C-alpha cells in the first residue's frame, strides 16, 4: 500500500467506525429496558415462588425463594409481607449466598485427631449418617449405664446429674425445638440450654413477674403507632426492619431518643442522642420514674394504675387503699420513696448523662404518648438486668403506655426463632410452655392427687393462672404446671404420677419426665469441666464464641472425655471441638413454623432440596431418637415406667383417659400423635381441643402458650395450620389503622397482637396476670400488673439489694469503674458461681483495668458469625475484628486508626489483639466526677470462617444475674494498650 492508499484506508476506517458506533444513535431508535433482559431475569420470571421467613434476626421478615427446575434462582423480600414489604436488611439479602455456599458441611464427619484445642486440626473423616447414629447411641448408652432410675422406692431420673446435655437452637423451627426438648427429656435430662439464656432470660424473668408474659408486649409493625421512642438498643442494625416502622412513625412526627454508649447507626436517626456508661441503665430508668412521680405527677396515668396494677395495694395485698396516692403504705408510695435518690444529679454521677440532657430526655419521653421503649442486650445482659427491665416496665405502667398501640415494653429478641425456641423451653428450668418440670417427688404425689380429682370439682383457678403462693406447695401453684404435665403424658406417651395411683402419699412415684432443674448455661460448662456431663449434643449454636468468658467454654469443650456432637451449616469454632460433625440444612430447605419477636407464628415452606447429605432437622431428630432408643433398650436402659414394669412382673403401667387406655410408649408417640411431618408436630404443640376416650383433655395443646394455633374449624383449607395464613388485609378499621394484620399467620396467645390490650380480640388473653399473693388465699385477681413483685422479694437481703424491696434499685456491674459507686450500689452478682474460672474469681479492679468495655452488633454480621463470616458479600463490608475508641483514648495510649492494640481483662490478662478503630463516635464520659473511657467491640468474631479474629467473649465476664442466670456480657473492665 502506498501513501495514497494509506490515507484512503484511514478514511474508510474512520467512516466505518463512525457508522458502526453512531448509526444506532443516528437511527433514532432508543434502547428500551422493557425488552431488555438478562439470564437472571429470564429464569426469575418463570421460576417457582415459595414463601419462607428469614433465618437471621427475630423480625420475622418474609422471603420469597425463586427456583427453576430445583435450581435456586433468587431469594428476595416478600412484597406482600406486612412486616418487610419486600425489603431486606444486608444479612437477609445475603441468604442466597448462605444457601448456595460451597463452604457448607455436606456430609457427616468424625474426628480423627484425639486432641482438642483451638490449634488442633480435627482431622475430619467422612462417615455415613448410620455410622454417626451408631456412635452417638453407643456414647449415650455408655454415659447412662450406671445412671440411677430408682431412688429409694421411687422411679425417676434426676434431671440435673444426668450426663447427657443438649444445646440449641434458636435457628431451628418450632417443631424441631419441640422434638429437641422431648428427646432430651426422654433421656431423663434437664441439662438443656440454648441461645435464649444468654440474651433475654432476664426479659422473661422481669416481664413475666411484672406483666405475666415474658415477651415483647407489642409487635414489629406497631412501631408506626408510637409518638415517642426511647431506644436503649440498636434496632437500625440488629433489627433493621423494626427500624423501618420506627421511620414510618418519624414520618408521622414521632420523636426518637437513643441512649447508647456508642453513637451507632440508630443514633444517627435520633432526635436526641445521649451517651451513657454501660452498667448505668437502672439508674437512668429509676431517674425517669422519679422525674414523672415528682416533677410531673400530672403525667401519671392514675386510672390505669388504680385499675390495672397493684399500685393502690399494700405490699401485703391489703387494699385497694382509697388514698393510695398519699398513703405511705401503698405500693405506689413505697415506689416513690425508693426512687427518690435518683435525681438528675445522681443519674449523671452514675450514668454519665449530663443533668440538662437527662432532663430533656425525661421531659420528652414523659410528655409524648404513646411512648415506646425498645430495648435489647444493652439492658438484658447485666447482673442486675431483671431489675432494670422491671424499671422500664414500671415506667411504662406509670405513664399508662401499656396495652395500647404504640406503647409497650418491647424486647427485641435476637435470633429468628428465639421466641419459639424459648416458648418450646429448650431451657434447664422449664419443660414446655413456661411450665416447670417436676422438681421433687412431693410435687408428683400432689399431681397424682390432682389427676384423681374430678375436673369439675377441683377448685382453684382455671386456665393455668400464673398464681403462686410463696411456699409453692398448694393447689394454686399446681394448677399452673399440672395441666401441662398431663398433656405431655398423653402426647409423649409417658407416665407421670404414682403407681397404681390410688394412694398417692405412699405408693412409689413413677415419673418419666426428668425430676429436678438442670444446669443453666454458665454452670453447664462448669459441669462439663467437672465431669458430670459426658455427652453434649449441640445444634446450631456456637458457644465457643457466644458465651461470656469463652475461654472457659473452650476449656470445657476440650475435656478429654466429652463426646461432642455438632449439627451445623459450617465448620464453626464450636464444631472445631466436636467428635462428630453433622450437616444441617438452611431454613429454606425444610418446612416448619417459627415465632418472631412480636409473637407471630409464621410458616416456612421448603423451597429447595438440601445439598449433599444435609438432612432436614426433623428427620435427623427422628432417626437420632430411634437409634438412641434402640441402643439404650438393648442395654436395659429405659423409661422409669418401663423399668418399673421390668422390676414388677405383671405390671402394665398405663393411664386411663375416659374409656381409653394410653400405654407408656414413647416410640408410638414419636414424633407426634398427629403424624410424621412438621405439620403433625405443630398440631400437637398447638391443638385447640383433643378428645380421648370420649373426654376432652384438660389441656389439649402440649404447649399451653400455643393453644389454638391449630384450628381445623377456622381454616380447613389449610388443614387448620393457622401459621400458614397469608392474608395481608386488615380485618376491620381498627386493624387497618393500627396494623394488627389479624389474618396474617397467628400470634400468641390466641392471636392477640398487642398483649394486655383490652378487647382487641374478644377471645384473646388481654389481661395482666402476674402472681400476687402473700398468703395462699390472697390473690388480687386478674389484670393487676405487679409494680411490687412478691416473687422477687426476699426480705432477708441487704437494703441495697432490690430483692429486699421487691422493686428495682440501681446496682453497679460486678466490674465497676468507680469504687465509690461500687460500694454505694453493691453489685447484685450471684456469687454462687465463680467468675472467670471454676477455682477462683477472676474479677478486675479499676486500677488494673480502667476502661469500660461494652460489646455490640453490626448490621452485616450475626451473633457468633457462624453464618455471616462465611459469606463473602457480608465479610466484604466488615472484614476484621476491631475495638472502637475515642480519639482521646487513642492519643492517651499512643495509637492511631488501624494500629494493633491489646484488649486485656482479668479473664484474659494477655489480652486479645485487635485493630483500633479511632472515631469521634466514641467519647469519654464523666462518671462520679472522673473521666472514664468506654471502648466497644463487636462480638461476631472467632477463629473459623473466611474472616477470622479473636472473640470479644474471651475478655468478657461470666457473672450472672441472680434471677435469670444471664451473663453480664455488656459491661466489664478492660485495659487497652498499644500492641
Amino acid at each position, binding site marked *: *500500500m502506498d501513501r495514497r*492508499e*494509506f490515507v484512503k*484506508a*484511514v*478514511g474508510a*476506517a*474512520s467512516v466505518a*467506525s*463512525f457508522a458502526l*458506533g*453512531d448509526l444506532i444513535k443516528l437511527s433514532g431508535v*432508543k*434502547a*428500551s*429496558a*422493557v425488552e*431488555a*433482559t438478562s439470564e*437472571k*431475569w429470564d429464569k426469575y420470571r418463570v421460576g417457582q415462588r415459595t414463601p419462607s421467613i428469614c433465618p437471621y434476626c427475630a423480625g420475622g421478615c418474609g422471603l420469597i425463594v425463586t427456583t427453576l427446575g430445583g435450581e435456586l434462582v*433468587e*431469594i*428476595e*423480600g416478600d*412484597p406482600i409481607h406486612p412486616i*418487610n414489604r*419486600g*425489603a*431486606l*436488611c*444486608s444479612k*437477609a*439479602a445475603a441468604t442466597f*449466598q448462605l444457601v448456595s455456599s460451597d463452604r457448607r458441611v455436606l456430609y457427616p464427619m468424625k474426628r480423627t485427631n484425639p486432641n482438642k484445642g483451638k490449634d488442633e486440626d480435627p482431622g475430619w473423616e467422612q462417615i455415613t449418617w448410620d455410622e454417626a447414629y451408631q456412635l452417638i447411641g453407643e456414647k449415650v448408652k455408655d454415659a447412662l449405664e450406671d445412671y440411677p432410675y430408682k431412688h429409694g422406692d421411687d422411679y425417676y431420673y434426676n434431671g440435673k446429674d444426668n450426663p447427657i446435655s443438649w444445646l440449641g437452637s434458636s435457628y431451628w423451627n418450632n417443631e424441631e425445638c419441640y422434638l429437641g426438648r422431648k428427646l432430651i427429656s426422654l433421656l431423663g435430662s434437664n441439662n438443656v440450654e440454648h441461645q435464649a439464656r444468654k440474651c433475654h432470660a432476664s426479659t422473661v424473668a422481669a416481664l413475666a413477674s411484672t406483666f405475666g408474659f415474658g415477651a415483647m408486649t407489642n409487635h414489629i409493625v406497631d412501631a408506626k403507632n408510637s409518638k415517642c421512642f426511647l431506644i436503649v438498643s440498636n434496632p*437500625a*442494625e440488629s433489627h*433493621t*426492619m423494626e427500624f*423501618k416502622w420506627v*421511620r414510618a412513625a418519624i414520618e408521622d412526627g414521632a420523636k426518637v431518643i437513643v441512649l447508647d454508649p456508642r453513637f451507632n*447507626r440508630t*443514633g*444517627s436517626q435520633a432526635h436526641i*442522642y445521649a451517651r451513657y456508661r454501660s452498667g448505668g441503665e437502672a439508674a437512668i430508668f429509676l431517674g425517669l420514674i422519679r422525674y414523672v412521680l415528682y416533677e410531673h405527677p400530672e403525667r401519671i396515668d392514675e386510672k390505669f394504675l388504680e385499675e390495672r396494677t397493684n399500685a393502690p395495694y399494700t405490699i401485703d395485698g391489703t387494699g385497694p387503699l382509697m388514698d393510695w396516692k398519699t398513703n405511705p403504705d401503698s405500693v405506689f408510695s413505697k415506689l416513690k420513696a425508693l426512687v427518690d435518690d435518683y435525681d438528675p444529679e445522681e443519674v449523671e454521677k452514675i450514668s454519665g448523662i449530663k443533668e440538662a440532657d437527662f432532663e430533656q430526655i425525661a421531659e420528652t419521653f414523659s410528655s409524648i404518648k404513646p411512648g415506646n421503649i425498645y430495648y435489647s442486650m444493652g439492658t438484658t445482659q447485666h447482673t442486675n438486668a431483671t431489675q432494670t427491665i422491671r424499671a422500664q416496665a414500671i415506667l411504662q405502667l406509670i405513664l399508662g403506655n401499656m396495652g395500647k398501640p404504640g406503647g409497650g415494653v418491647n424486647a427485641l429478641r435476637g435470633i429468628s426463632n428465639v421466641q419459639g425456641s424459648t416458648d418450646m423451653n429448650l431451657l434447664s428450668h422449664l419443660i414446655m410452655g413456661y411450665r416447670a418440670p417436676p422438681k421433687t417427688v412431693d410435687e408428683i404425689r400432689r399431681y397424682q392427687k390432682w389427676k384423681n380429682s374430678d375436673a369439675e370439682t377441683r377448685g382453684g383457678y382455671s386456665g393455668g393462672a400464673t398464681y403462686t403462693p410463696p411456699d409453692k406447695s398448694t393447689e394454686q401453684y399446681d394448677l399452673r404446671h399440672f395441666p401441662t404435665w398431663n398433656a405431655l403424658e398423653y402426647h409423649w406417651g409417658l407416665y407421670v404420677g404414682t403407681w397404681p395411683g390410688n394412694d398417692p402419699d405412699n405408693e412409689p412415684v413413677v415419673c418419666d419426665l426428668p425430676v429436678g432443674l438442670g444446669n443453666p448455661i454458665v454452670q453447664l460448662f462448669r459441669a462439663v469441666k467437672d465431669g458430670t456431663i459426658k455427652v453434649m449434643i449441640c445444634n446450631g449454636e456456637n458457644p465457643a464464641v457466644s458465651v461470656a468468658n469463652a475461654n472457659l467454654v473452650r476449656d470445657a469443650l476440650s475435656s478429654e472425655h466429652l463426646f461432642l456432637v455438632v449439627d451445623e451449616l459450617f465448620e464453626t469454632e464450636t464444631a472445631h471441638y466436636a467428635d462428630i460433625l453433622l450437616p444441617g440444612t438452611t431454613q429454606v430447605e425444610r418446612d416448619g413454623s417459627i415465632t418472631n419477636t412480636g409473637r407471630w407464628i409464621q410458616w416456612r415452606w421448603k423451597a429447595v432440596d438440601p445439598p449433599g447429605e444435609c438432612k432436614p432437622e426433623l428427620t435427623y431428630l427422628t432417626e437420632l431418637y430411634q437409634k438412641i432408643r434402640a441402643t439404650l433398650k438393648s442395654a436395659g436402659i429405659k423409661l422409669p415406667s418401663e423399668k418399673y414394669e421390668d422390676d414388677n412382673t405383671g405390671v402394665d403401667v398405663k393411664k386411663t383417659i375416659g374409656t381409653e387406655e394410653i400405654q407408656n410408649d414413647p416410640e408410638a408417640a414419636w414424633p407426634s400423635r398427629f403424624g410424621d411431618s412438621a405439620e403433625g408436630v405443630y398440631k400437637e404443640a398447638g391443638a385447640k381441643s383433643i378428645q380421648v376416650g370420649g373426654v376432652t383433655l384438660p389441656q389439649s395443646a402440649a404447649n399451653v402458650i400455643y393453644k389454638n394455633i391449630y384450628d381445623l374449624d377456622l381454616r380447613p383449607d389449610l388443614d387448620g395450620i393457622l401459621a400458614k395464613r397469608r392474608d395481608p388485609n386488615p380485618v376491620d378499621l381498627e386493624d387497618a389503622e393500627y396494623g394488627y394484620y389479624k389474618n396474617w399467620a397467628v400470634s400468641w396467645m390466641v392471636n392477640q397482637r398487642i398483649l394486655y390490650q383490652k378487647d382487641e380480640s374478644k377471645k384473646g388473653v388481654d389481661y395482666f396476670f402476674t402472681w400476687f399473693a402473700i398468703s395462699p388465699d390472697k390473690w388480687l385477681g386478674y389484670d393487676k400488673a405487679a409494680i411490687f413483685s412478691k416473687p422477687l422479694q426476699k426480705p432477708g437481703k441487704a437494703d441495697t439489694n432490690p430483692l429486699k424491696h421487691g422493686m428495682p434499685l440501681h446496682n453497679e456491674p460486678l466490674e465497676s469503674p468507680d469504687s465509690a459507686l461500687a460500694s454505694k450500689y453493691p453489685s447484685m452478682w450471684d456469687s454462687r458461681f465463680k467468675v472467670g474460672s471454676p477455682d477462683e474469681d477472676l474479677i478486675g479492679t479499676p486500677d488494673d483495668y480502667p476502661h469500660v468495655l461494652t460489646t455490640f452488633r453490626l*448490621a*452485616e454480621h450475626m451473633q457468633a458469625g457462624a453464618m455471616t463470616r462465611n459469606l*463473602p*458479600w457480608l*465479610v*466484604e*463490608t466488615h*472484614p476484621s475484628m*476491631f475495638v472502637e475508641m475515642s480519639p482521646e483514648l487513642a492519643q492517651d495510649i499512643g495509637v492511631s*486508626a488501624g494500629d494493633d492494640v491489646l484488649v486485656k481483662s482479668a479473664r484474659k490478662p494477655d489480652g486479645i489483639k485487635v485493630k483500633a478503630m*479511632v*472515631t*469521634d*463516635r466514641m*467519647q469519654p464520659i464523666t462518671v462520679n466526677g472522673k473521666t472514664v473511657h468506654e471502648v466497644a467491640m463487636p462480638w461476631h468474631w472467632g477463629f473459623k470462617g473466611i474472616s477470622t479474629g479473636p472473640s470479644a467473649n474471651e475478655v468478657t465476664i461470666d457473672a450472672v444475674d441472680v434471677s435469670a442466670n444471664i451473663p453480664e456480657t455488656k459491661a466489664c473492665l478492660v485495659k487497652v494498650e498499644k500492641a
Partner: protein
Amino acid sequence: MEYAVLVDPAKCIGCRACQVTCKRWNNRPGEETTFSNEWTNPPKLSFDTYTHIQFKLEHDETTGSTKWRFFNWRCMHCHEPACAEACPVSAITKHEEGPVVVNINRCIGCKFCVSACPFGIPKFDPDTGKVDKCHMCYDRVPHKEPACVQSCPTDALLFGTRDSIIQKAMKRKEELNGYVYGDIDNKPLGGTSFIYVLDAEPSVFGLPEVGEALPATVPVIKYSKWLLVPAALGGLAYLVSWRRRRMKEKEE
C-alpha cells in the same frame, strides 16, 4: 415512559442492604477488603461493586453533637451520559426508561468512558478487560423496581415514574429545607435518573459540581477514536501491505 430513583440519604440507616442485594442480583463476588476505620467498604466502586454506602462522620467539638451520614453512591444514569458519548464502539446505551447500560460483550476495554465520566463511575477490571457499572437493573425495570430499591428498609431509595419522583423530591426538599441534585436545583449532564434529595450542600456528600452540558473533554476523548482507531487500523493495514510488498520484493 421515563423512570427514576429518588435517593434520600436522610432516611438511610447505612445497613448496606442495597450493596449486598446488588451483588446478589448481578451475581458478583464479595471483594477482599481490609479494615476501614471509616466503615466504607469496599473503599471504592469497582467492576464487582456497582454500589456501596459511603460513611461520612461529622463531629462538632464545641457542641459535642455528632452526625453520621450514609451516602449511597453509584452511577447516576445521566440524561446525556458522558460515558456513552465517549465510547468508541457504542457499548453504552441510555435506555428510554432511564438506565445507562454497558454492553459487556461490546466493550473493548479502551477505558474512554472511565476518563469521560465526571463522577468517575465506570470501573475497569484488568482480568476480564471490561468496564462495568450500575445498570439500574434494566432487566427488571420497569416490571420490577431495581433490586436495591426493593431491598431498602427505610425508603431511602424509591422507584417510580420520573414525574412522580420529581414531585416527591420537591416535597422532600421542602421538608428538609435542602437541595435536589440530579434535577430541579442541579441537572448534571442534562439531569440524572438517580436523583438525590439532600439535607445539606452537595459538597458535604462529596458530590461534584457538574454542569448540564457535556464536559469539554468528552468530545476530545470521543473523537480521538477518529484518530486512534482508524490510525490503529490504518497502521495495521500498512504493516500488512508493507509485508506483502516485502514478500513480493523478496520473490523478485
